[in-house]
């Protein structure tokens, strides 16, 4: 019988612009790179600024977990394994960067212009297990107003 070493299960982010702290008590968060020349913030890592072309090192910024709905669609027809319908939104974060995400807490059967500008808060959820048995963590959003 082979000796098995119990490896600790990790929490890995689904997207490269999310950081998952080692301590499970700490909440995962989204991060971006700020161009030191023009101040534009991008999701995740950058080698150059897509706006001004600057290639100096970027400053890492922690993004807010609250934002507001810019626009959305309600997706009824989707890939196998996803529960539909769901509200697929573009969410503006106060740092001036937008993120895609599904929003919960709205009735997907009655989409409405009233949803524009709704305040949402990010939460994370395990969406699957990767090949090494680690949890894969994704960001979702819920309406808070």
């Amino acid at each position, binding site marked *: 019988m082979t000796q098995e070493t119990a490896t600790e299960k990790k929490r890995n982010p689904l*997207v*490269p*612009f999310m950081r998952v702290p080692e301590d499970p008590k700490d909440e995962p968060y989204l991060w971006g790179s700020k161009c030191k020349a023009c101040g534009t913030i991008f999701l995740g890592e950058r080698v150059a600024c897509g706006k001004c072309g600057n290639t100096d090192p970027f400053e890492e910024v922690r993004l807010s977990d609250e934002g507001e709905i810019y626009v959305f669609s309600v*997706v*009824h027809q989707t890939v196998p394994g996803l529960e539909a319908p769901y509200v697929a939104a573009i969410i503006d974060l106060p740092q001036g960067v*937008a993120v895609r995400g599904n929003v919960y807490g709205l009735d997907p059967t009655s989409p409405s212009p009233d949803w524009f500008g709704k305040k949402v808060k990010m939460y994370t959820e395990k969406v699957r297990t990767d090949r090494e048995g680690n949890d894969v963590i994704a960001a979702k959003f819920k309406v808070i107003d």
Partner: protein
Amino acid sequence: MKDVAIVGANMIKFGRYPDKDVVRLASDAAIGALKDAGISINEVEVMVSGNLYQSNAMIGQRIMKEIGATGIPVVNVANACATGSTAFREAYLAVASGAYDVALAIGSEQMGKMGLLGFGGERDISYSTEGVMGTGLMPGVFGQTGVEHMRKYGTTAEQFAKIAVKNHKHGVHNPYAQYQKETPLEDVLNARMIAWPNTLFMCCPTGDGAAAAVLMSAEKARQYTSAPIWVAASVLTSDPWQERNPTMFDVNTLTRNAAKQAYEEAGIGPEDLSQVELHDCFATAELVHYDNLMLCDEGEAGRLIDEGETSVGGRIPVNASGGLLSKGHPLGATGVANIVEIVWHLRGQAGGRQVQNSKVGLAHVIGLGSACTIHIVKK
């Protein structure tokens, strides 16, 4: 740049051809375009092939082996949904530059029942914007495009639905369209929801198709025709930096940039156009492009569809062919086919869907990611 004429134009009926391969579909379109021009493959000096899924498999050269392996330069082009129109533009540039006198552009695709899904993996840095898998699927993306127009200008779901009503009405008269079926407003609104506000009838079908065009220098064209069709503008743009892009695809800014360049290059304004074939992959897309192509004042697109101005017989007919909503959207074929459609109208060969007295047409395509082509062609 030298003047370039379109002397041959042809497409096959779009649809599903499970018994033919894509080389055969492309060959049928190409041979038709050569016959239309009155030349053989031996007169062609350069060929550009647009095909999204097989450009990594030398489809252009495979087509030449079928229609005449003359040893000329062959280029394979891929540019998302703008693949065909980019191939046309490369053929145009080959002649406009003075390097060649006769070029053949072929667009082809065989998709079967494959859907229009999203792209970009989790680790692709430029597209790693998926919050949860499924937020970036094409129907949702183009749903958001329409919803942004609602937010900015108060456009309604019903106005978007009217686009599908109009295009399917036009499509009835197009024997080259995959579907020739009218869809009254009630049917469109009550059809299965795909991604709000687009219902099933507001999404283009995918399928198989091919189209081809023969381009010539002015001197060469005079040997073959007394009535050439001229390329008055050929423009290709990509995304400029935008606040929410790449998180949110922006089909507007690069279309506006392309339109401005195209009108300037052609020396005309939108009011001089006889007709437009534009990229209605979803009904929401067509409506926003009324604004982007400046067919109306900004934000007036909803009024344009309400008042029937973009129907055949209206002030500025859009998608007389039935659009992608009727014709189908075999990715690589689309961009060549909508130029072929305009050529047929300018020649008065468009049958029951003919735009009367058409003199100048604009063909627009968007490949998401993004690439925008605009061609203005005239008598």
